[in-house]
């Protein structure tokens, strides 16, 4: 990656007006606000039903200052494809076409269309903001909800299944660029979006989005919890370019120093994990230790 952007060099222009309908402390607000700065004015957005639909506001008032098309839940990547085809037919190919979908709209109902777009090599930037559940409809479990999570429809036992690894699924498509990001690291997100825009075909960005009501924590701690996810090693910041994975930023540093914060801090900071036992957390810690021991031994390329 080229030289990293610092706060003072971020574009000053805002592309979303304040007073959105998002929850107080919604970290999607951070990711979206900074992400749009990376995309710039010459962008058309595609948004399926999700928290972002709500954030953008109710007709006839919209908070986003860019053209946006709302689409049905399963069709995000297909709609992005349609806009690209139209722009090509009309000779206007320099406009960015960017999908912003939630984890439900990506890993579950939207996966098929996304897979198709990857296979066709559409020049699409697909951003999945992952708050690990169907939050817009009241916190139901999704394909990316972690195992053991209490949600509105896993209310007592917690989710019994392992989460899907969507970036890994994307990597199997052999696309040019995949990046995992976090709302707690907005400059990293900014740089990765900028880089993605310069890559061909479908580019996939997965953003970890701590959600105060869904994850059950005080809204003030959204960024802190996002940071903790990375510092405990349970969420990795990395890039994949044509099947080749490379840790980046804070995760790269974590691998180099192998100084994971205890993952128990991450779990116990969120009410949604109250059904997970200390013994289960210890298992997870052991797995993380093993994984990051392994990472610390692989030569980490200097990007």
């Amino acid at each position, binding site marked *: 990656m080229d030289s990293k952007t610092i706060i003072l060099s971020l574009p000053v222009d805002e592309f979303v007006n304040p007073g959105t309908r998002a929850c107080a402390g919604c970290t999607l607000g951070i990711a979206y606000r900074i992400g749009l700065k990376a995309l710039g*004015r*010459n*962008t*058309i957005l*595609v948004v399926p039903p999700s928290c972002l*639909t*709500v954030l*953008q*506001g*109710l*007709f*006839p*008032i*919209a908070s*986003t*200052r*860019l*053209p*946006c*098309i*709302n*689409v*049905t839940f*399963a*069709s995000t*990547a*297909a*709609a*992005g*494809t*349609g*806009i690209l*085809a*139209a*722009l*090509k*037919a*009309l000779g206007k190919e320099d*406009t960015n076409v960017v999908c912003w979908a939630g984890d439900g709209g990506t890993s579950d109902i939207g996966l*098929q*269309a996304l*897979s*198709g777009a990857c*296979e*066709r090599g559409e020049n699409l930037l697909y951003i999945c903001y992952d708050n690990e559940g169907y939050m817009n409809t009241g916190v139901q479990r999704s394909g990316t909800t972690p195992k053991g999570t209490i949600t509105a429809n896993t209310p007592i036992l917690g989710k019994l299944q392992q989460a899907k690894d969507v970036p890994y699924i994307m990597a199997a498509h052999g696309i040019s660029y995949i990046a995992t990001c976090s709302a707690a690291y907005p400059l990293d997100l900014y740089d990765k979006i900028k880089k993605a825009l310069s890559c061909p075909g479908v580019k996939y960005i997965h953003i970890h989005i701590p959600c105060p009501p869904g994850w059950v924590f005080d809204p003030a701690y959204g960024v802190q919890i996002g940071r903790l996810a990375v510092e405990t090693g349970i969420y990795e910041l990395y890039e994949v370019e044509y099947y080749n994975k490379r840790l980046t930023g804070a995760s790269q540093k974590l691998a180099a120093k192998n100084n994971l914060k205890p993952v128990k801090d991450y779990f116990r900071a969120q009410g949604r994990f109250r059904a997970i036992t200390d013994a289960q957390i210890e298992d997870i810690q052991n797995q993380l230790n093993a994984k990051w021991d392994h990472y610390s031994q692989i030569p980490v390329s200097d990007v």
Partner: protein
Amino acid sequence: MNIIESGNVAAAIGVMRARAQVIAAYPITPQTPLTEKLSELIESGQMDAQYVPVESEHSALAVCIAASSAGARAFTATSANGLLYMHEQIHWAAGARLPIVMCVANRGIGAPWTVWNDHQDSISQRDTGWIQIYANDNQQIIDSVIKAYMIAEKMSIPVMVCYDGYILSHTYMPFTVPDQLDVDGFLPSFNPAYALDPDMPANLNPVTLPDVRPDRNGELAHGYMEIRHLLQEDLLKTFQVVKETDERFTGIFGRGGDPFLEPYRCDDADFVAMALGSLSYHLRDVVDMLRDEGIKAGVMGLRLFRPFPASAISEALINRTGVIIFEKALSYGYEGALCSEVKSALYNQSGNKPPFVHNYILGLGGREIKTVDLFNALKDSCTRHDGKDSGTRWIGLKI
């Protein structure tokens, strides 16, 4: 130029003549050769369009919705289960007021699986707000596709051009291919009131509340109900546009004249049979046979199914003794869809005693329709009626 080709190819050439710019393609029997022909036309350079081989029919219409929203003339085609798979998108396209044209090669719907012709697929979409045109032969297919874009873009309402799977889609017939320059003179390029544009940012089709709300200037903006009301109002204005489009087309190409109902020997008919699609032409043979026996029968092919031309239908039928509706679809739990709608068009017509309405269901899942069976049914209705409506009767059941 006159050629002999299949209905699918007729449709494809119509799409080419209409200069569609974005084609979404997904294979499903019996529509597949249409999209294959389009890919051949595009790859050979005869047609300048973006061909998007999508991974599902739901995505096919998603591509068209997005492309149309971005200012391109969009097309897709499907049949049966494919049409149903995109059902939520069909509603969306109409609600979003997008002038998409889609061909439906009519095919029966599972379960159980069938690939053969009936009309349940498109009939089941009649509530969605799309304009529905039925073609009776391959000439009408190519002409209807071209006219469809004119109508769609004038009304900002999507149009479904339906034609019988296999019977028309795969059957070779002679027809005239309109000249490209003539079509260009008839159909201008797509120029929407709004297309997604960073210079004019707008948020299309967000959540809309039950009640009206002021916009940022304080003026009341339409609520959901107003927006939907406008769709209905515009559908009712579509009759006039269909008529004018047909007249203009006839003026340039010399074909047309019956945009709503295509009658055959109806001038003095006491009994009028009615059907959608190629069946109405098949019934012409039966009408001739009955006429030979001195029975004054006629047949009307309904060309425009949505918006439903109720006044044209009641005007055409009100003075008859009987109307006999042959359908390849039904509204399960009640009766043939066309039958119900014709009856309602005839209801409460001032003065006259309305004709009786008989309803025959036939040809489901491609069950062969034999002229002798049609003849027996129609003759029975004409000669042994009691002046009352019948329940649904089925032709061609074997067990």
